[in-house]
């Protein structure tokens, strides 16, 4: 991938401070900026990949949730699982959309990884205290081996553009149910979730968590392409073809998860992980049996990616 291409694939730091602050950004490893139009040239001259972004342009971008977990006393949940604020479903629903994060301290790295995982055009307003962690994360993302594999999905969701459908989509993604968003039912999938039909009445969307659970049980855990054990706060995105798979893992919990166990449908005897802050890690206790592959990821920080090969 060329320098320009990988830079374009990374989320963009929105920065309104003057170019005199360039050294601190350089020190943090930040290379790509979205800046007010009148400052763009100065930043380019300072050696940055600077994209002009005016206040009006920023305002029309879809605002995103701060990624992470929180206690939601106002929401009843069918499970003990923590409430995850995640944006993957928005990116899946509108891959061509333009998005903006407004992030408190401590969340920039996860947000950058989240946008990267879904290939989203996202701008990040961050707390200056996060520059270093953001720089480390973007540097890590930029060094990942290139991959252009298609999404793996277990079911289709027919997007009617409605709010209730969005919440159902959110809950499905959070449960690591791999979905493909379609405009009309797809014969490629056994399960097509279309709200307002006899099978998925609109009233069920009022309890999106329960509906997502029902869909999961329709699919059955045995038929799922991806299972994650050892955490309830990790969301995966799986891409792959007959020979290779790439699994992105986003950890929303705010603390490292160790010994995460992954089960993927398909036989992948070879694999390696790249974990933010840790670099390349070998997969542990890898087992290929009964049409599935299981392995342990030693540690997952905010983000990790696992590349697998069907050929030894």
């Amino acid at each position, binding site marked *: 991938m060329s320098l320009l291409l990988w830079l374009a694939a990374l989320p963009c730091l929105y920065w309104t401070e003057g170019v005199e602050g360039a050294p601190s950004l350089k020190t943090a490893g930040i290379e790509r900026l979205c800046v007010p139009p009148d400052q763009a040239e100065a930043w380019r001259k300072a050696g940055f990949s600077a994209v002009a972004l005016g206040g009006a342009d920023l305002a029309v971008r879809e605002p995103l949730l701060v990624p992470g977990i929180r206690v939601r006393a106002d929401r009843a949940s*069918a*499970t*003990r*699982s923590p409430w995850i604020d995640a944006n993957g479903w928005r990116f899946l629903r509108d891959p061509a959309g333009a998005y903006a994060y407004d992030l408190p301290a401590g969340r920039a790295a996860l947000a950058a990884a989240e946008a990267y995982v879904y290939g989203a055009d996202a701008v990040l307003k961050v707390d200056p205290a996060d520059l270093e962690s953001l720089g480390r994360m973007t540097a890590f993302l930029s060094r990942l081996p290139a991959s252009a594999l298609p999404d793996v999905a277990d079911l289709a969701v027919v997007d009617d553009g409605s709010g209730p459908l969005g919440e159902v989509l959110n809950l499905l993604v959070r*449960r*690591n149910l791999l979905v493909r968003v379609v405009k009309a039912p797809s014969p490629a999938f056994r399960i097509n979730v279309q709200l307002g039909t006899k099978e998925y009445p609109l009233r069920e969307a009022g309890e999106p*968590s329960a509906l997502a*659970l029902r869909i*999961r*049980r329709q699919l059955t*855990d045995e038929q799922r392409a991806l299972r*994650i*054990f*050892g*955490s*309830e706060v990790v969301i995966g995105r799986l891409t792959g073809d007959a020979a290779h798979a790439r699994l992105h893992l986003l950890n929303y*919990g705010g*603390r*490292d*998860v*160790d*010994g*995460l*166990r992954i089960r993927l449908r398909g036989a992948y005897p070879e694999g390696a992980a790249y974990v933010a802050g840790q670099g390349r890690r070998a997969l542990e*206790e*890898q*087992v290929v049996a009964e049409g599935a592959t*299981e392995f*342990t990821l*030693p540690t997952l920080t905010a983000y990790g990616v696992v590349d697998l090969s069907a050929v030894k």
Partner: protein
Amino acid sequence: MDRRSFVRLLAAAPLAPALPEALPRLRVVTSYRAAAVPGMPGPYPGRVVAVKSERSVDTASNAANDDVVREMMARGLCALTGAKTAPEAWRRFFMPADVVGIKVNCGGHPYVVSSYEIVAEAVRQLMALGIPPAQIYVYERFQNQLDEVDYAPHLPEGVSIVAAETANRHAENRGYDPATYVEADLFGEEDTRSNMMRLVSRRLTKIINIPNVKDHGATGATGCLKNVAYGSFSNVARTHHRGRSHTYSFVGTLASVEPLRSRTVLQIMDGLRGVWHGGPFARTRRYVFYPKQIMFATDPVAIDRLLLDIVDDERKAHGAISIWDRSPEHLKVDDGAARDADPDVNIIIREPGHVEYAGKLGLGVADKARITVQDLEV
């Protein structure tokens, strides 16, 4: 990894009083075979020796008497095994090559935990058999609980005191065996596996189980079965949620998973102290009581069947509702403060029937008419 998996589906429910409306499908995955005589129920099914001593614990200070405890243990184990001496009794279960785990219970800190005196005496007897301290492990799931209780000053150097996780955060899994687990979707949780501790499956050859006499909000009482089951597997808090509990079938199922079942060869119920409400915790002395007894068995079900009555009798003595009470008027879901303040409050429908269910799984004898209790006094 070259392994054979033995998968057992436990879907059928035995008939029992207060049967929960539906039992979940539990899938056991393990590559370990049962021993010729599995540790549970072991060589003495349905047999319990209960040793009591008024001098065993000072109720004013909550301190146990080391000398009395040692005598209680010697008398109890000799009576259980028919051995003439304590070393001979211990030799019936252990040999110098064994790697022994001592499953303690630290959840009732500070008032009701596995006594230092009992744990220390077990270690002393194991070492007297020729088992080096490096082959003895005192274990719990959570390091923060072990740290609070702090067994180290009471044990010889070289004995390991280990946990699988630093605390109950569901983020540390490396202490667990990814190939030995029970899989179940109980409440729609995403992580559907409960994995056995690696220490248990890959290092230990024998286990001594030292639970306490405790009330429990989800199981009615927690004793041998729950201590060794929930204390040896990951991700078990998921079994109770919003007033409902799947402990009825889950406790016994975990305890029956090999190699835990075969390796747990001795049950020592520490009933010097107990907690009759608010368990498994004992953060105040309000609900602490003093049975002043230690029970010995190889059969965890038999001891736990007796335990249910001990806890329930104490509750009745205080005018509190029974552990068998399932009435909605006493249920305040997830209201721990109300439960702590009022012994007539349940926060979950309790499942004391888990003991009988474990009996149906072959872990021991739950029928009181078939349990033989030998009472001794020191």
